[in-house]
């Protein structure tokens, strides 16, 4: 089974972010493999350990995104694909989906795994767009997954619980942070990652036109979310509990 995992390098979320031209600054500070993607890598490793096959990690990003790919390889993935092209600077979600879908098609796949959304951009739209472009089903928000015969079974996280969802393969799958416990790379894994193959592609290698690789979205302004208000205080004169309960009811929390 060929499992592809989409991974992204992001600025370390533990550090404060910086903007340049309304876009996240990606150079300078420390970058890491998006922690949300580690769940995808782990899910892919578990699937191929159980069912055989290979894990390929695919990333679009600057040259430095190679580090994110190496990190996934050191966890145990078999090979990588990095699409890095100056013309992709400032790519929006749609361009990203087109580029990744083309690379996925070129590589061949039974299953594509991604995180629910990236930790930095958080649009959450790329996996769905890729599924559409590939013409395969999207199984999203998996908190548990299994492959029986050639059918993917997932528990799809909902607000109240989960739905049991089945999908034929090939498919695109997104996994939540609760799906597994990602492994740590061992020293051996880190050493082996050095010699694993990583294919490096340009937009031209993917058969995409310049127009298809051009962003149609522009970010005009970025404003910080409003600071949270002071909150409401209830003096407890014996009716405190009732007041809190009324407040929660009004907020539709209970």
């Amino acid at each position: 089974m060929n499992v592809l995992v989409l991974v992204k390098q992001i600025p370390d979320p533990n550090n404060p972010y910086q903007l340049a031209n309304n876009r996240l600054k990606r150079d300078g500070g420390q970058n890491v493999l998006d922690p949300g993607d580690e769940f995808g890598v782990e899910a892919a490793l578990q699937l191929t350990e159980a069912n055989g096959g290979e894990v390929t990690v695919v990333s679009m990003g600057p040259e430095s995104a190679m580090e994110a790919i190496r990190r996934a390889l050191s966890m145990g993935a078999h090979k990588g694909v990095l699409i890095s092209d100056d013309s992709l600077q400032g790519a929006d979600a749609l361009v990203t989906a087109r580029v990744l879908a083309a690379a996925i098609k070129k590589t061949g796949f039974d299953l594509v795994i991604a995180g629910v959304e990236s930790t930095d951009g958080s649009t959450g739209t790329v996996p769905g767009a890729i599924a559409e472009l590939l013409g395969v089903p999207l199984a999203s928000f998996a908190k548990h997954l299994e492959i029986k015969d050639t059918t993917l079974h997932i528990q799809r996280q909902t607000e109240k619980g989960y739905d049991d969802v089945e999908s034929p393969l090939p498919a695109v799958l997104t996994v939540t942070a609760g799906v597994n416990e990602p492994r740590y790379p061992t020293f051996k894994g880190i050493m082996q990652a050095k010699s694993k193959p990583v294919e490096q592609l340009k937009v031209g290698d993917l058969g995409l036109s310049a127009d298809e690789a051009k962003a149609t979205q522009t970010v005009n302004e970025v404003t910080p979310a409003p600071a949270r208000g002071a909150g409401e205080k209830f003096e407890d004169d014996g009716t405190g509990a009732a007041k809190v309960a009324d407040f929660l009811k009004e907020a539709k929390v209970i």
Partner: protein
Amino acid sequence: MLATMDFRLSSEQEAFRQTVRDFAEKVIGPRAEEMDESGEFPVDIVLQMGELGLFGLPFPEVYGGAGADFTTLCVAIEELARVDSSMAITLEAGVGLGAMPLYLFGTEQQKQRWLVPLARGEKIAGFGLTEPEAGSDSGNTKTTAELGQGEWVINGTKAFITNVGTPISQHVTITARTAPDEISNIIVPVDAPGFTAGRKYKKLGWHASDTRELVFADARVPEENLLGARGEGFKNFLIILDAGRVAIGALAVGLTQGCVDMCVSYAKERKQFGKPIADFQAIAFKLADMSMSADLGRLAVYRAAWLHDQGLPFKREASVAKLYASEAAVTAAREAIQIHGGYGFMDEFAVSRFYRDAKVLEIGEGTSEVQRILISRDLLGG
């Protein structure tokens, strides 16, 4: 071309440092306070450290190791100690003292049998040198081993031994007198008849590390459990201790760095007289001194580890690294409490644990006095 001097670790070593740091912060950190309070040896965490390959770092893959080197082991010990000394000493003693004698002095058969489970991180082992009457004077061994009918019959007591009384302990390698003026090393599995790992000591620090008295009362092991040549046991154990000192230095550096990191964030947050205490020069200068001592200790430790990996002499450098880094750690932990004020004296703040954990670094694997004897002897001869 001039040979270049390069103070950087390889990118793989740096990547591995990050792995161990993440592991320490996410897996060990949240349990450290509870482990310190209960004094329980956390088997599950130690086995996870094994899965990460920590216990096999300096050993070749044929023996279940990771094929890294001694420097990488020091980096791992340092990163664990930045979060918790008990797990750092469990690794240090497990590899440096428990497994290393087999790797250096074992026959191929002994390595396969005893080293492989250790390097894979499935079992741990101990190093039994210290006795009630043989501390700094570690050659004053009273334990005896007599050979008869293909078996060693061992009698005596070992004091303060690490890693032998846990559910995953495999054996202890000891020094014993095999003749009045002859000390040899013998492998004693924990289930040998006549052997007991006695009660746990109550200690000032290192609470989750296993430290016990070992009792040998006509303990019997097969003749083939002799490790290394007969009569070489004391000399061989001193060789083990040379590298062990560097590893203790790494533990001390990690503890110091942990103090730096905790104090920097505390000093920026804690306000008195209307400003963060970091704004008071008295506090800021303490941080500068602490950070400098972490740096210098690290340089000394990595130099000694590098010499060792190159196969160059490193005895003196090992003593320098251990002595400097351990005394710096004790000072750093004391100042860390001072920076935290009364909160630092409370168990909820990790600095109080670091303070209790630091002291033993000036004692184990050769006291500060012994290190000064070794360094001055190197200067003065004799």
